[in-house]
Structures are given as structure tokens and as C-alpha cells.
């Protein structure tokens, strides 16, 4: 693992139960990098993401996080917004406030300092105008901003996004792209699953490409050449 690495995967195997979806995954995310995670439907992108976040256990290999000052790095996770049940009557602000839960003891009130931090995050993603509305009533793009604010409220070392522009209109998608660009320019390390190749080409410096249960890792210009893009497009239909 290099000195500047935030996360290193060494021959990782990911899957569910005894079924391996992707194997032999090795790559390193350096601090401040922007990495796109690509692959056709069912290639194992979300499985890999959930494994490195500890949501599902790995089936083999190693996940090594680069500790800074003895402190374990924090990953801010932005899930696919459709995974959240609309039956919950949370406002956008309440959803964003969940991001500070790791720093607030169970059963105690959220301190004013943390509430201010949530406010900063909502402001950063330009969500102050609609954050008091019910989360389930917001548009796709607005929900995505709230979920990014929630991830930022964790004070993350790595921001992990699962399809942030899927199912949102062109204007909202452009706004999310600009937001992610701004966060990256501010020094945030980002790992993003995305089907939208132009978005990945525009934002990412490196790409992890999943195909046939294996992963390739390299710079965007090398991996996203015309031949591979045709293959990916063919695989997604």
C-alpha cells in the first residue's frame, strides 16, 4: 500500500452467501482521487461497493484502509435513492442529520455544533431551499443532494456514491456533476458507480471496470476507449 493511499483492495472477492460475484479485485484509491466504478448490469458494482463499505462481508482477499493519525477513515455513503422507503415521514434536514449519528452518543440530543455542521453541508449542496420539505416528496435530483449532504455530514475521508445521476433529469444530473466536481476540487476522494459514461469521463481520473467477474483498473483514457465502451453498451442492453 503506497503512502498516499486511502484504500487498498488486495485480491478481494465479493458476493452473497457462497456465490462469488467478482473476484481478484485489486486497486488502490489515493487521497484526492476521483474513481469511476463501471460495468454492465449485474457485473457486481453495487456488490463491490457494499463489500468495501462493510455492508456485506467479503468472501476473500483484503480491504486495507490507510489510517491517518491513528484515526480510522470515514466513508460517506450515498445509496441509490430508490432504496429508501417513502413510508418514513422524515424531512430532508432530518435525513441529512443522520450523517452526524456516528459522533452523537446513543440516546443523547444532537448538539448545536453538529446541527450547524449539517446546515453547512445542506448549504454546500445548495439544499437549504427545500430541506424542510418531506424527503419522499422531493424530486430525484433534490433527494440526491440531501443524500450527498448526509454523506458530507459524516466528515468523510472518502465519498462513495451509487448511481448518483440515475433516473434524474438532464438539468438535475448536470447540477450533481458540478457539485461532485466542486467537492473533488476541494480535495475530497470520491468513488462513484455510474452507468453514464460521459459523466465518468468528465469527472473521473481513473476507472475500475468490472466484467465477467474480474476487475480492470487504470486511467480513464486507457480503459474508456471506444472498443470497451461499445462492449459496455452492448452488455447493458
Amino acid at each position: 500500500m503506497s503512502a498516499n493511499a486511502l484504500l487498498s483492495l488486495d485480491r478481494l472477492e465479493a458476493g452473497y452467501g457462497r456465490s462469488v460475484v467478482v473476484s481478484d479485485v485489486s486497486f488502490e484509491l489515493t487521497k484526492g482521487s476521483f474513481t469511476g466504478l463501471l460495468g454492465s448490469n449485474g457485473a457486481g458494482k453495487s456488490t463491490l461497493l457494499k463489500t468495501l463499505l462493510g455492508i456485506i462481508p467479503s468472501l476473500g482477499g483484503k480491504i486495507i484502509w490507510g489510517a491517518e493519525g491513528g484515526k480510522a477513515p470515514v466513508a460517506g455513503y450515498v445509496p441509490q435513492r430508490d432504496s429508501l422507503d417513502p413510508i418514513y415521514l422524515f424531512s430532508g434536514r432530518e435525513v441529512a442529520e443522520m450523517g452526524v449519528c456516528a459522533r452523537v452518543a446513543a440516546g443523547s440530543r444532537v448538539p448545536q455544533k453538529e446541527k450547524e455542521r449539517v446546515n453547512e453541508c445542506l448549504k454546500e449542496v445548495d439544499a437549504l431551499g427545500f430541506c424542510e420539505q418531506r424527503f419522499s416528496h422531493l424530486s430525484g435530483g433534490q433527494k440526491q443532494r440531501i443524500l450527498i449532504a448526509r454523506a458530507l455530514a459524516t466528515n468523510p475521508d472518502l465519498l462513495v456514491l451509487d448511481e448518483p445521476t440515475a433516473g434524474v433529469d438532464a438539468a438535475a444530473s448536470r447540477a450533481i456533476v458540478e457539485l461532485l466536481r466542486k467537492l473533488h476540487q476541494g480535495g475530497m476522494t470520491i468513488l462513484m458507480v455510474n452507468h453514464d459514461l460521459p459523466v465518468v469521463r468528465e469527472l473521473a481520473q481513473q476507472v475500475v471496470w468490472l466484467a465477467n467477474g474480474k476487475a480492470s483498473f487504470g486511467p480513464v483514457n486507457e480503459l474508456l476507449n471506444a472498443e470497451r465502451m461499445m462492449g459496455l453498451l452492448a452488455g447493458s442492453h
Partner: protein
Amino acid sequence: MESLREILDPDFLLRNSVYVSLIAGFACPLVGVFLVLRRMVFLGVALPQISSAGVALALSMHVWSGHFGNVHGDNERLAAVAGSVIFTLATIFGLAFLERRGRGFVEGRIGTLYVVSLAGSLLLLSQCPQAESGWMDLFKGQIIAVSNSDLQLTAVVMALVVGVLVFFRREFLLVSFDREMAVTLKKNVMLWDVGIYLLIGLTISIAVLTVGPLITFAFLLLPPLIVHPFARNMTQFAVASSVLGGVAAFAGFWIAYVKDYPVGPTDVVLLGALYLVAFVVKKVMGKG
């Protein structure tokens, strides 16, 4: 109004029944809110019946084991509490385990457990005439004889359940709403899940013993289902569900007392009527 004055009189003969109805009415909907949010409504229907099967088994154990003397008084109560708690907790943890493994047909399991436990309760009690007479009343929703010790047990358990739910509401809601996020925040998701299942199990097993499965089911689910379309936030959802449950419990008892109806079916029909009114109102308001 004379009947209302009678019910409110501290020396009213059935005062413990009123108190226990009110406690169940206020507390059960707060637990039911989590059953609704977690989309476990079927479990809310089945668990009180499964809890009753535990009570029936405990009370008829002496018949099945060949000891034909009956269990009486405190021993009977203790056996009933044990049967109710063990059956409820074993079922809720067993189903949660199977659901997490993602195998099988969840609704099928719950439906089967419901019908088998209902039939099993009736069969068990049919062989135990002395227990049958008292417990069949409870199973039908008759709250008549509530002892001081039953009232105290119900009050203590429900106060504990409500206290824990209110104190740790943020954690319970986070784990219920976005389990994956909770994992990334290093929350012990398993521990919080066990906590909520314990609270649900305890509430149901104690409520079934004091007010019966019919009222338990009605107070767990109907108030949250009535309130949800009109609530603006989670606090309002929980508080309004609890208040509606408490008010319906008192109103149901009053109507049952005046008309000489059984309390349980009166409460359920009253809540059912409110559900119908809420359904029409939300359609008219365009919230359906």
C-alpha cells in the same frame, strides 16, 4: 353521562380493566409505528395469536404431561407469562433470522403460523376446561377480571418499553430507515434490531395476557395506519397514534359498558370505523 361518571369513579369495580385498556391503548401504537414503518403488519397480526398459543400451551401443560391437577393462582399467572413471552420472542427472532437469510416466502410463514397457532390454542384449551373458561373470555376480548398485580406488571413493562423507544428513537429509526447507512456509521445494527424485536415481543406478550390478542392487534396497528396519511413528521405520527389509541381505548370501554358489549370487539369496531372515516377523508383531501 352517569355511566361516564361511574367509569371515572376511583372506586369503580372494573377500574383495573379501564386502566389496563388505557395503558395498552397508549403504548401499543408506539410499538405499532415500528411495525408499520418496517412493513411488518402481518407480523403484528400473527404475533398476538402466537403469544396466545404460548399461554394456552402453558396452561394446559399439566394435562398433556399427565398431571391432572390444575395450576392455580400465581403459578397459573407465571406459567401464562412464561408461555406468552417465550412463544412471542422465539417467533419474532426466528422469523427475523430467516428473513435476513433471505430464503423462503415470509408472508407464507407468518400466515401459516397465525392459523396454526389459532387452531392450536383452541385445541389446547378444549382439553383444559378450567383454564378454558377464563382464557377464552380474554381471547374473545373480554377484559373483566384484572388483578392489581396484572395491572402493575402491565404498567411497568409498558413504561419500560415506551421509555426505551423514546430515549433511543433516533437509533431505532436510523436502523429501520437505512440499515446500510447505519452500518457505514459503525452502528451495531444487529444490537438495535434485537432491541426493537425485544420491545415488540415484550409489548405483545404482556398486552395479550391482560387485554387479549384481539385488542393487542387492533391497538398495535390500527392507530398508526389511521394516522399515517395525515401526519406531517415522525414525532406527530408517533404521538398522534398513541393519543388515538388511548382515546379509542377509553371510548371503546365506555360504549361497551353502556351497551353491555364485550370490550375487545367494541374497540376493534370503533377503530375500524375510524379507519373507514380516515380513508374517506384522505380520498376527499386527495391524499390517497
